């Protein structure tokens, strides 16, 4: 049921904070059971279809926001793959993550054109404002900051992408505050 609810909201992850909270509860704990229920549900259509590993991983990540260890174990079991091999495949692709991601994904392009037009300074400011380094996630799981190489619109350099949308240059300094406010508003509403 939780799985359904999460799917409706698309790529936004709802489980991340729950899972990270569950660190102490160990196997058999309630939260892990919840994750396992979600993953098993996703996997029903892939059961024993070895050729569908990457698709299955994508689906699981779409629902959970990342690929936790317990989820990968279930994928391995359902597809009859060695666990190490599933991890090996997943680790090959940059699209898969093994730790929880923030609700907002903020990406700063550090490609050549953006670099020349001041990307390092923007990245530095974001790092300072969020209190994290590039490729990290804030402790409240609100933001993940990424440094990417070229998003394909060098004419707009320096480019910042927030949740898959390019942020206007004049809004760069406001984007974090704006995203925070959005989160607060939706929590109140």
């Amino acid at each position, binding site marked *: 049921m939780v799985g359904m609810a999460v799917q409706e909201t698309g790529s936004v992850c709802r489980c991340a904070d729950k899972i990270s909270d569950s660190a102490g509860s*160990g*196997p*058999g704990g309630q939260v892990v059971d919840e994750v396992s229920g979600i993953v098993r549900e996703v996997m029903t259509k892939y059961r024993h279809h070895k050729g569908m590993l990457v698709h299955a991983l994508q689906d699981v990540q779409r629902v959970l926001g990342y690929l936790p*260890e317990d989820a*990968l174990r279930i994928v391995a079991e359902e597809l009859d793959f*060695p*666990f*190490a*091999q*599933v*991890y*090996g495949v997943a*680790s*090959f692709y940059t699209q898969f993550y*093994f730790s929880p991601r923030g609700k907002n994904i903020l990406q700063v392009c550090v490609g050549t054109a953006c670099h020349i037009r001041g990307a390092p300074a923007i990245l530095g400011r974001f790092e300072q404002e969020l209190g994290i380094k590039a490729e990290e996630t804030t402790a409240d799981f609100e933001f993940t900051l990424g440094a990417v190489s070229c998003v394909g619109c060098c004419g707009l350099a320096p480019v910042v992408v927030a949740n898959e949308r390019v942020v206007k240059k004049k809004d760069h300094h406001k984007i974090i505050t704006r995203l925070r406010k959005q989160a607060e508003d939706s929590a109140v509403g």
Partner: protein
Amino acid sequence: MSELVRLQIDGQEVAVPKGVTIIEAAARIQIDIPHLCHLNGLVPSSACRLCLVELEGTKDLVVSCARGVREGMVVWTRTERVLAARRFVLELIWSAHPGDCTTCEKSGRCELQKYTYEVGIERNRFPLRRDEQPIDTTNPLIERNPSLCILCGRCVRICRMRNGNNVFDFVSRGITTRVTTAFEKPLQESGCTFCGSCVSVCPVGSLVERQRRFRGREWELKTTETVCPYCGGGCKLLLDTTKDQIVRARTEKKDDYLCVRGKFGWDYALSKERLKTPLIKKEGTLEECSWDEALSSIAKRLAKIKETRGPEALGGLVSANYPSETLYLFGKFVRAGLGTNNLDSSVRLLSWPTLSGFIQAFGRMDVVATLSEIEAADTLLVLDSEVAVKNPMVGVKVRKALKTPKKGAEGANLITIDSRKTTVAGLSHLHLQPRPGTATVLLDGMIKVILSEGLYDQEFVAANCSNFQEFSARFLEMELDVEAITGVAEEAVLAAGRLYAGQGQKAVIIFSPETSDRHMVARIINLLLLTGRVNGGVFPSLLHSNLWGAAEVGVVSEFYPGYRPVEAATARKELENLWGVSLPSEPGLSAIEMIQAAAESIFGMYILGENPVASFPDKASMVRGLAALDFLVVQDIFLTETAQLADVVLPGVSFAESSGTFTNAEGRVQELNRVLPSQTKPDWEIIAEISTRMGYPLSYHSEREIAAELKTLVSEFSGPRNSAFRLVLTEAEEISAEPDREYPYRLMIGATLFGFGDGSWTRRSEISRLETPYIGMSPQDVQSLGVVAGTRVLVSSRRGRITTTIKVDESLPAGLVFMPAHHPEGNSLTSASLDPVTKSPRFELAAASIDRLQESEPESQCAGDRSLLNLNQTSGIAKWN
């Protein structure tokens, strides 16, 4: 024979079977094509590119480890172009190998070093492009240095393909690719069984034995071939040594298998706790003394008991972990020197129903299958599937059988009968899960299927089993509701019976003698007879190294060497002539009977290498019995729990300092060779000296002399096999205690990989650090008890109680709990009820209760319970209330 393909390599003609690769064809004519990722027996991965060769008619160089031969191929392995490519490949590998050969343990055996030298590369052409990564030292046995890894993938493949274990894989990509575990967890959390196969096949220094670090360079090592001292698999062991230390155990070929005990478990022989001098009890305390004092005290005290109470007041007990020569001499000393048939060994506990049952049924033991017959079988019937733990080599062979194509099938059929979902059970085509303790009835069900459907070998039965008609009639008359008793569906039993009996198929039954009582053995024999599989149809997974040998050389009370019955006057005469004394005619007591008779009819005992306090059932009564003896001698390599009760303790030698022979579970006699100089005296010399001091001189100069005497007794007896057999009808008794409200669980005590026997060896080995004492419970039971892994609990049976730690074991069904046999106090919970015929303790599942230890209930209180049994040297005995 398959069709031959002719090709030319470096101008030489060679003909090889179809399907062979170029590199293998070249090896047949002694052309070594350099290679790093290729290893015989593993599927090619073409990862290293070092084996490139020129193939006429092909534009590019080809990978010779993956390219199959074709008729008329012309291959060149040493052209300018090939050599340049080889050099370039090596230079690229070096650009990601921050190797320092001066301290690398592989130096001298390293394959990268060898080829680099051959090609003559003096300096790296390319800068080093890989960051150093931390060395993994999170486990005590295998050190992983990922920086040195050349990504050949041999470890990935041997673990996956041969061991079916999948610990490693390639992770990430490009320059950051590395071979590691899922989520980079430590090996012990990744399903690793620490067989060390990955270490053996690693061509560079990325995987090494931790025990080997900084203990000698490869070229300084001396290699001695010997036999693994642990289980009945009897694997050949090559021990590499410096002057007084073992540095490493390995196999002849890189890809041969050893388990964790064989590969890493030899270190107990070098333990600092080894006894070096005799100990004698003075005023309740064991003190060091001279050899002369110890030996004369033993001779005097044993002689005194013999004189005052008669020879039948003495007894000898020996472990079946000694070479046959030592065992034979011990038997001779007890029977001829001490003059009593109170002589027994661990054979009684670990395999007697099987060995005696087979001798009775077939006349000889060598009807059993060999390990290669397991591999070649069409059908395998595995009873008690932890064979992969008891004889790990059997597990490897079972896996191999499943993958070896047979006539009309891709691999062998595997039927498993086990209440637990073990690894082997997971591989089965048919897994029957009877209720714990009811496997015997399930076999009856299979026999019934074979009889009622006429699936038996009619020709064989008619010619060899005179009582077949009677047996069949009586068996079919019996009322037998298999499903009601075992909980296994009728169809499954039917399928198993039909599959096993398959005409014209080779089938092997694999079972565990230490858990099989005479009723189980009788059913196994019936199955063999009904299907006419009296040769190579069964494999008993013998738990210890020389159980077969011990029975054969006569260290069981009812048989002289060569299975000559003690009651037979002719046999006694023969032995009297050979040994030059008159021998007692009355039968002796068995192992447990002797200790139970302590202070009633037995007053003195000599125990060689056995540790009843830790390894016999019902610890409390064992302690009581041994402590009540007038005189106890224990000869062992450590001050075991039993040795602490002794009046005199003699230091023996380990397998590494012994020579002689072991007979493994296949019946193969193998030479044990001395690897290290003796730390004390060889065991047989000690026995001979005591016997001589007691007036029965045993004068031998070496084990070989003993072996020669033994040979006349054992080989002479090996007459023809029985040709007439009898099917046996016995009524199995339900002996396991039914769980009740007070004791709701059934407790199974069994083997694990990281322990062995009484644990006195493995506890002093690094391998024991991989497993702390525990009790395994099913996930359901864990949940209903409200505990988690790691919870401290109190385990009680009607016999005693101990504290231990919970481990979740998904292989267990609800209601069954499991404890390793080498658990330090596990035998406090078991009972020593003996089978009236075999005198072996019945393998029973004790009823047990498990309670969480309350926070308020300090552990010391329970430790207090334990200390009741803790052996206190001053008082000599703990009281049990």
